[in-house]
């Protein structure tokens, strides 16, 4: 395996819808899934300065087909986005979908097959088709969302015997972290509060985020003068997998994202500032995702090493990092495995404000899976969207003071596809 892209590839355009609920969120309420996708795609095409007919191929991502009811996504959406007669495929890598799509696009461009590829992802984790209606939707229950989502998890033995994402991804990892580094449960809880506060701050500055209310504001709205009392209240923030609490978790969302990848020389002639797609790494593992140390995940390490090797970077080169933060504690472990944060010091970094957009270790500046929200197949694209905005200096109120020159985006495709993408200034 040479682990190289033989030609330079760039992201020339990015797009993303608001994340939220197609039945109630402002800017989304009443939108069809077709129009939701078109919104993200149109933004990406406009950003790149190309038309849909300028692209050579379309990689269309959607994971939870039971709620979207859009298999054959490429054809079903082609008349909504203008890509008739193009090459295309529907694929999924669960919550890594859009970035795995970017890797596939980069490979096809570097191989000389295509010049320009459109990648998009769409997901509805909050709403589903209502009976047989072509346009009406209804809410999905919590249990139904996880029953469908967990179809991506070991169906022979894991799920049938009581596997639970919150235990496996949060509680056990938290306990492993506390024991390994001698952190008390009290210090852990305080660190997780600070981490959530940072993510919610970022969400409050992101107009497309699912949750745009700061944690402090929410606490005050519920009558708490001290937001940490709110954090510790069983009513508002119960343990879902002790010692992990509800507000350290993902919030589900409906959403869509898109990006245009092209040859680096073509990108320079485009409309917006392009970003180089410097490398990627992909490695997967079935359950259990970790051995006797829940803080170390071998498949992530392999994905990181492959991506850093292809891009020829070291951890010290990273200016901006997103790690998959469906579980806040897991996101810290991954950042420590990458070497962006010091081992065992991630929660202390959160307490010190280092992970804020204006800190010296900025992470998840759009708010991450908790505040920006999580629309499975669309989410990796939303993370890349944020990284590109940051690198262009166009992230508004949450702009990192010195725009990053090297960004790393890590995602977990359930369950599990560790995917790492390295972006660099062109």
């Amino acid at each position: 395996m040479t682990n190289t892209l033989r030609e330079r590839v760039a992201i020339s355009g990015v797009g993303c819808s608001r994340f939220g609920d197609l039945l109630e969120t402002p800017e989304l309420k009443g939108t069809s899934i077709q129009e939701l996708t078109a919104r993200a795609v149109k933004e990406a095409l406009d950003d790149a300065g190309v038309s849909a007919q300028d692209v050579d191929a379309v990689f269309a991502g959607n994971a939870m087909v039971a709620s979207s009811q859009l298999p054959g996504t490429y054809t079903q959406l082609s008349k909504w986005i203008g890509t008739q007669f193009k090459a295309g495929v529907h694929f999924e890598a669960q919550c890594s979908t859009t970035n795995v799509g970017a890797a596939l696009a980069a490979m096809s461009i570097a191989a000389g097959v295509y010049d320009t590829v459109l990648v998009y992802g769409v997901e509805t984790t909050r709403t589903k088709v209502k009976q047989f209606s072509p346009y009406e939707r209804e809410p999905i229950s919590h249990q139904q969302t996880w029953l469908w989502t967990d179809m991506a998890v070991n169906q022979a033995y894991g799920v049938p015997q009581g596997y639970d994402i919150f235990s496996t991804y949060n509680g056990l990892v938290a306990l492993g972290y506390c024991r390994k580094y001698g952190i008390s449960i009290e210090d852990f809880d305080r660190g997780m509060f600070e981490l959530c506060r940072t993510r919610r701050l970022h969400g409050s500055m992101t107009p497309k985020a699912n949750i745009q209310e700061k944690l402090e504001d929410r606490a005050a709205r519920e009558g708490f003068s001290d937001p940490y009392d709110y954090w510790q209240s069983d009513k508002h923030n119960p343990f879902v997998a002790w010692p992990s609490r509800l507000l350290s978790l993902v919030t589900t969302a409906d959403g869509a994202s898109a990006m245009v990848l092209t040859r680096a020389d073509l990108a320079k002639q485009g409309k917006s500032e392009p970003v180089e797609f410097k490398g990627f790494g992909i490695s997967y593992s079935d359950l259990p995702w970790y051995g006797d140390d829940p803080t170390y995940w071998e498949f992530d390490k392999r994905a990181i090493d492959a991506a850093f090797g292809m891009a020829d970077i070291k951890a010290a080169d990273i200016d901006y990092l997103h790690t998959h933060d469906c579980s806040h504690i897991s996101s810290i472990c991954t950042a420590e495995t990458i070497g962006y944060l010091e081992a065992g010091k991630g929660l202390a970094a959160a307490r010190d404000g280092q992970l804020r957009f204006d800190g010296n270790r900025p992470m998840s500046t759009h708010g991450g899976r908790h505040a920006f929200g999580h629309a499975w197949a669309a989410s990796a694209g939303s993370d890349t969207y944020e990284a590109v905005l940051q690198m262009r200096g166009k992230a508004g109120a949450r702009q990192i003071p010195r725009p990053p020159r090297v960004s790393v985006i890590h995602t977990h495709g359930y369950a599990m596809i560790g995917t790492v993408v390295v972006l660099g200034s062109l």
Partner: protein
Amino acid sequence: MQNATEQPNTIRSYYEGLANGVFRAIACKSCGRYTFPPTGCCEHCGSWNVEPAELSGEATLLFATHNITPACHPRFEKIAPYVYGHLQLKEGPIVQAIVVGVKATPQDLRELFERGPVPAKAETLQMDDLPVLAFRVTG
């Protein structure tokens, strides 16, 4: 009409074993390691040269937390919240499974956490439609 013979089914065999308190795995003749629960090839080296094996059920419980309520899967609604553990079997494999005999409260889980790794033994938890693997702390 053709006479179709029932083919071997590893998954069915595993659950039938559980119903009788037998913990089925496969042992690899190439690298000597176990794959549990069983598949048709070695999860460590990819070898197809494997043979059926039965494990002792002896384990060390490394960490224990609890699941969410209502349970993600309807099969476990009745017993949620339940304790869910991370264990290492005596024969090597890492396993996650329901832990019985411990209450899913912060107090009980904290006490267990502070004790550190403890010995545990596999048993069968009979749900309405399926026998499933569970562990009980033994020391």
